[in-house]
């Protein structure tokens, strides 16, 4: 049986790719694509009469296939279905890194799932607290409650918006400039940052519209998202490219962090680097840039 290392609550998650847990052809080699996380789906991708079969398939995939560094998250069925409890049992028993709560609308939803996860951890002898959680916000109510959802549990790694359902609720549809979800994305991001968790954008479903996809990913980065949900491996590379820092950003960040550490040791609070004022407020951002650069293979130093 493959033993996965203890999941990290905060790690690089630029790309989360959905995969139907019921399709062996897909999940057997999901790790080769190089996405940061894969999202094995027990929910919408699996037909109602195949939910049981998908769990058997998921259990053996989780315990047999070595996904390596790729994070393995499972999307479970909604709390209004008869499936979610068994979904949680199989996720925990199989050692999934995290569980994505579909259609999450309140802190209570998170606590309900957390209680079931903890019970399963005890049942299967898994370290209590190991299994991470994330919330998919799919309705206006979910977005409005984003802060309480994001701060409902120490297991929460972040939240993601689900565009299809959300647009339906709002009586709108996809717009190339993103105006259909601008407020929702903004509000969710603010809630996630306030709660100190990560935030992910929805999938882009038109695989032939490369320009539209690129525009959306650039907007995601500009708005401050940590990453994006994907439906196809061919979308991974572009997201990684766009989310990577530029070489100039990496050099500037390195100079800032180095100068700050030297200045702090010498008792200086504010100073300039390459003509720009720097003080302590800039340092977390610069360190984040360096960590991202390291993950992208652009930085090999020892500052982070």
């Amino acid at each position, binding site marked *: 049986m493959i033993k996965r290392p203890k999941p990290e609550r905060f790690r690089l998650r630029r790309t989360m790719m959905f995969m139907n847990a019921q399709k062996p*052809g897909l999940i057997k080699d999901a790790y080769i694509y190089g996405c940061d996380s894969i999202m094995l789906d027990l929910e919408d991708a699996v037909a109602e009469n195949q939910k049981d079969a998908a769990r*058997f398939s998921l259990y053996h*995939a989780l315990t047999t296939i070595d996904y390596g560094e790729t994070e393995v998250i499972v999307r479970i069925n909604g709390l209004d279905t008869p499936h979610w409890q068994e979904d949680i049992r199989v996720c925990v028993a199989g050692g999934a890194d995290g569980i994505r709560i579909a259609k999450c609308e309140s802190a209570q939803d998170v606590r309900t799932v957390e209680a079931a996860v903890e019970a399963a951890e005890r049942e299967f002898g898994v370290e209590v607290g190991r299994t991470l959680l994330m919330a998919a916000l799919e309705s206006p109510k979910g977005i409005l409650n984003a802060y309480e959802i994001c701060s409902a549990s120490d297991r929460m790694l972040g939240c993601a918006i689900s565009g299809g359902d959300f647009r339906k609720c709002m009586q709108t549809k996809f717009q190339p400039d993103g105006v259909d979800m601008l407020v929702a994305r903004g509000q969710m991001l603010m809630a996630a940052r306030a709660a100190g968790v990560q935030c992910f954008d929805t999938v882009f479903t038109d695989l032939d519209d490369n320009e539209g996809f690129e525009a959306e990913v650039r907007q995601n980065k500009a708005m401050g998202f940590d990453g994006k949900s994907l439906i196809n491996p061919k979308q991974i590379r572009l997201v990684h490219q766009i989310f990577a820092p530029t070489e100039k950003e990496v050099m500037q960040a390195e100079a800032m962090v180095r100068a700050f550490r030297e200045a702090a040791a010498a008792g200086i609070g504010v100073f300039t680097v390459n003509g720009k004022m720097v003080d302590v407020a800039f340092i977390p951002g610069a360190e984040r840039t360096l960590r991202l650069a390291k993950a992208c293979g652009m930085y090999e130093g020892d500052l982070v």
Partner: protein
Amino acid sequence: MQIEKSAMAGTLESSDALVTVEPGNQGIELEISSSVMNQYGRQIRATVLETLERLEVKSGHVTVVDKGALDCTLKARVECAVFRSCDKSAAGIPWGGVIR
């Protein structure tokens, strides 16, 4: 477990297998057809029989139409078909127990 009624699990898609179980009383009668019969026929048979033994299925008619499934997929399909035949596939599965 005892196969109580006919049940199926899986598909005929590539990398999958379609497993059918039916009640019987003359031990395990196993029929396999596979797109990779010459290379993997013995291994498929061994995996299916091992899985049935683990589930303590003593008799029944089992048909496997294999489309190049990995061992872990074969196991999952056989287990699901057997649990379905007893109407026990929806909840309370012994993950990590007989399912392993």
